């Protein structure tokens, strides 16, 4: 894990990055490094700022009114919701305009996103983890008075407090990274983070990814049809746990596709592992097996590709649904 990231920046699919590139035939789009015309740019900026300010004012009034009377409250809730929907719709469209070309509207949306997300993560980390798990141990009394009244009372408060000084210190050292000097100071918490990650990943990888995967690969390479059972168990039953029944069935019918599937599964794993075997050149039998492994890999990727495309389309469908239904009211 990289500690200097918001945790979900490591997700397999991140927000797309803007490509300001346009095909050669199209008008060259502005890029961050390219000089952008200053004036329209700034006029746009002030407009968006004032829109932002205005909506916040309305929002604030709405909030204040909400705490007064019921009728007014209902009206303001509805108002804040409809302002919200408009905001969301405009921002959605703002991002989508980038498809045509890079423009200030998009850039404003992007800038807001960057700022809001950093703050969101920080606020969440603060209230959900730092306050209860760190400050709750360092100064439980204060935390109980100010933020979490029902914070459980520890049996060994002194010991807990002493222990909590370690992450406090490491945390401060981590923040030292912001200073231009003394880079080595942040290496201590970094080492702790890397060591912890290495420790838990090492064991988990062996258990869940090596042994369990090997175990899951293991299966009989010959499969018999389970329904054609001779004697004893009725046709409805599908169990072959009784060895003598399995024996009797084995005389009866071979499950062709079941067998092919079982063999494919095992051969697939082994041939791809051969491809990942680096000590031997891909020649002769090893070469053939590795080649088969590549084909397995390509089919794997093809399937993953199809599923990924499906995911991307769903996300866009959801945004369009929002625009059509919640904003335009087409339903």
């Amino acid at each position, binding site marked *: 894990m990289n500690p*200097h990231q*918001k945790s979900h920046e490591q997700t397999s699919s991140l927000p*797309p990055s803007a490509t300001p590139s346009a095909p050669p035939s199209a008008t060259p789009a502005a890029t961050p490094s390219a*000089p*952008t015309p200053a004036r329209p740019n700034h006029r746009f*900026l002030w407009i968006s700022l004032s829109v932002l300010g205005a909506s916040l004012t309305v929002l604030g009034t709405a*909030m204040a009114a909400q705490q007064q009377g019921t009728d007014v409250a209902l009206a303001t809730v509805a108002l804040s919701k409809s*302002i919200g929907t408009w*905001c969301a*719709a405009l921002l959605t469209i703002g*991002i*989508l305009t980038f498809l045509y070309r890079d423009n200030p509207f998009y850039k404003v949306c992007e*800038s*807001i*996103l960057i*700022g809001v997300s950093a*703050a969101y*993560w920080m*606020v969440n980390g603060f209230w959900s*983890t*730092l306050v209860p798990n*760190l400050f709750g141990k360092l100064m439980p009394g204060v935390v109980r008075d100010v*933020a*979490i*009244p*029902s914070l459980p009372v520890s049996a060994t408060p002194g010991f807990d407090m002493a222990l909590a000084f370690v992450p406090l210190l*490491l*945390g401060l050292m*981590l923040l030292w990274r*912001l200073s231009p000097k003394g880079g*080595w100071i*942040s*290496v201590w918490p970094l080492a702790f*983070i890397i*060591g*912890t*990650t*290495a420790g*838990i990943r*090492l*064991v988990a990888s*062996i258990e869940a990814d*090596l042994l369990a*995967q090997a175990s899951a*690969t293991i299966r009989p390479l010959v499969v018999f049809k389970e329904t054609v059972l001779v004697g004893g168990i009725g046709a409805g039953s599908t169990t072959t746990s009784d060895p003598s029944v399995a024996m009797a069935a084995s005389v009866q019918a071979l499950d062709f596709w079941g067998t092919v*599937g079982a063999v*494919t599964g095992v051969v*697939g794993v082994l*041939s791809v592992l051969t491809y990942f075997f680096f000590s031997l050149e891909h020649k002769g039998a090893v070469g053939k097996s590795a080649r088969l492994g590549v084909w*397995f890999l*390509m*089919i*794997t990727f*093809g*399937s993953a590709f*199809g*599923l990924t*495309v499906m995911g991307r389309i769903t*996300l*866009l469908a959801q945004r369009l649904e929002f625009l059509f239904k919640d904003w335009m009211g087409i339903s």
Partner: protein
Amino acid sequence: MLQRTVPMAILSLSGLILMLAYFSPMTTSWGETVLDWFNILAAVAFVLGAGNLLAVNLEKISSRRAGWAYAAITLIAFFLMLGFGLLKVGAVPNAEHPTVAFAGGYETAASPFGWTYEYIFSPLTATMFAMLAFYVASAAFRAFRAKNIESILLLGTAFIILLAQTAAGMFLTGWIPEESAFAFLRLDWMKVAITEHIQTAGMRAITIGIALGVVATSLRLILGIDKSYLSKS
């Protein structure tokens, strides 16, 4: 000493404790303490991220680099959201303890923090992701080429999955009886065969390979053989 030996000792010790804690029940509580610290540091890392953001954007504004105005917007958005959240502005008071200043919930749409999340943050991230649908279409046209047998296999499989995942699969091959000898020509049959047998096998082998890589790297780190994190910092 302080710059190299101590970090290396910290790294090895924290890694070893966690490994030990998994096998020896009596050390489980140590492992728990280490993990607790780790999680606190992970939360501190968010503060670090925010700090970096501040530094970069302030520098942009102070040097009046191109697009500095956008940096200003970023900062305004950042501070507004941060203020809403840290001060719990407009938070719904805690039902049991209404007098405790910071005990309220700040994440409902009735508070500015929750409102900003709901109507600004959420649509922005969702749309950013949704843009990928467009790019994947463009890439389909411009980049995905059947160059050799491998890429033909890849694209061919993708076609089958794309068709089988929708009603097109049933429409095209649904008429083939499921019990017939040609049932394997049904797209839904092929999809199951591909994902459950071939893709699972391929991913298992990739997973095993990557797991071995993770084990080797973690081991090198814990044993102090790999020190790339030291020299590059």
